[in-house]
């Protein structure tokens, strides 16, 4: 074999292996670092809502709860918006609208999260506190989700910020999924006497699992997002049913408290939270990538 080819092949192989090695090393380091906490609290770490550095008692439930709930709020808001705009862009909008709008949606993904966080603190939170939350709790206060004092900082603010942040990825992947569906599918439906709307519905059915993948990728991003959430979620390790109340997320507690973790157990507990976060995002992303990959690979009318 040619020496250049040999070098190229083995060099690229080396880099590929290196990436895997880094991931494995990270996992190993976290497992090692969280050894003390795992040994002390066991599985109870995941179900306890005690977070008391003074007494060196640690439970991760409030953070898991905060991450899950804020991410779900984000999905609930972002999903209809992203799917709607993906459908509009790929099925309805004329070319000259599609290009610029798709470009702007993708630009949203390029904004640094600290900027989202600042916007959240100075625009979103005051607005929620002054205008939105009081109105909702006045009219829908009988639902526990919307009860309580309007802080502004809290789950709802975090959910909204996250929704804006995951909108671009869900939109652009859903758009790719729709574009991977061949035009002959649309023509087949139209030629059967389907209206535009009916043909779009048939197309959407073909894209179903792709949309699921896009959603999971968005979710993965929401789960791991740190900066913007930390700035608006309120940072209180409490589990409250009300969306207006402050909470805490896994990523935020690590960012906030790692530098001031004084005892070994404190550090170890934070590392264990990182481990949980790592596993969750890894699984979520792998699953999502797999779905998107299998859809864009096999969609099409005939073999």
């Amino acid at each position: 074999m040619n020496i250049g080819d040999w070098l190229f092949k083995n060099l690229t192989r080396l880099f590929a292996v290196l990436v895997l090695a880094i991931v494995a090393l990270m996992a190993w380091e976290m497992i090692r670092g969280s050894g003390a906490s795992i040994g002390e609290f066991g599985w109870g770490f995941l179900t306890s809502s005690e977070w008391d550095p003074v007494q060196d008692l640690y439970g991760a439930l409030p953070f898991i709860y905060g991450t899950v709930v804020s991410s779900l709020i984000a999905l609930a808001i972002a999903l209809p918006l992203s799917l709607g705009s993906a459908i509009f862009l790929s099925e309805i909008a004329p070319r000259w609208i599609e290009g610029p709008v798709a470009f702007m949606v993708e630009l949203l993904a390029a904004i640094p999260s600290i900027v989202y966080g600042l916007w959240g603190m100075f625009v979103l939170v005051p607005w929620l506190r002054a205008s939105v939350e009081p109105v909702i709790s006045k009219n829908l206060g009988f639902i526990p989700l919307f009860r309580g004092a309007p802080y502004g900082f809290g789950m709802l603010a975090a959910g909204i910020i996250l929704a804006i942040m995951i909108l671009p990825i869900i939109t652009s992947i859903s758009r790719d999924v729709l574009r991977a569906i061949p035009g002959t599918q649309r023509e087949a439906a139209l030629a059967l006497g389907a209206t535009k709307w009916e043909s779009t519905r048939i197309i959407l059915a073909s894209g179903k699992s792709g949309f699921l993948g896009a959603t999971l990728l968005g979710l993965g991003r929401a789960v791991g997002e740190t900066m913007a959430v930390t700035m608006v979620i309120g940072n209180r390790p409490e589990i409250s049913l009300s969306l207006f109340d402050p909470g805490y997320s896994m990523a935020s507690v690590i960012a906030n408290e790692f530098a001031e973790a004084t005892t070994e157990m404190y550090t170890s507990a934070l590392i264990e939270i990182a481990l949980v976060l790592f596993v969750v995002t890894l699984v979520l992303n792998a699953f999502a990538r797999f779905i998107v990959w299998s859809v864009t690979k096999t969609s099409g009318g005939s073999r």
Partner: protein
Amino acid sequence: MPKISTKNINAWFGKTRALRGISLDVPEKQVVAIIGPSGCGKSTFLRSLNRMHEVAGGTIEGKVLLDGEDAYALDPVVLRRRVGMVFQKPNPFPTMSVFDNVAAGLRLNGVRDKKRLAEVVEKSLRHAALWDEVKDSLDKSGVSLSGGQQQRLCIARTLAVNPEVILMDEPASALDPIATARIEELIHELKKEFTIVIVTHNMQQAARVSDFTAFLYLGELIEYDATTKLFTTPGNKQTEDYITGRFG
């Protein structure tokens, strides 16, 4: 009265002119073949008959009459139910089963009755000469069938909405000779009930299946006559050159 009659139609893709003043009558329950070299406008002509030309962003001028009435005055949805279409590449809906593919058009028409759906699906599949091969696997995905079966599935899907006219754009060009022969037999059968317009690249096929043949060249209708006449004693030099394989 002809089933379909076009009066001087011109079609464009933007500034590209694809059809130049085509006037042609399609008699009822006959097969009309459209032949001509690649790019001469065969597909465009076919697609102007059920207003699919507009779907690809094209524009059209002139008149298309269906049973003597202006086809373009009809709602395209209604027109396309009366004038069905089978495409070059088999395109069953990938997420639907064999059954659901055939039932798709009926469901669009609002038919919900299970018994009625099952009846029509069976009848259409029998009609498309596919029933015996798929009757035990109606729940299988439509795309799990072979290419030839998929194309007959698409024909069944078109038949299920009971159109009056069936347009076929090179329906056998992606198939092997045996599957092709089956489609040709099928066309013979379907002719008893439907009016068929078929585009084909294959001159033998046109000669075998059609009653009338139209030869298109560079967007113009060069010659249109009974198939036997056109293939034995063409009235035009260009037609003769084409069917004897001297160009195209």
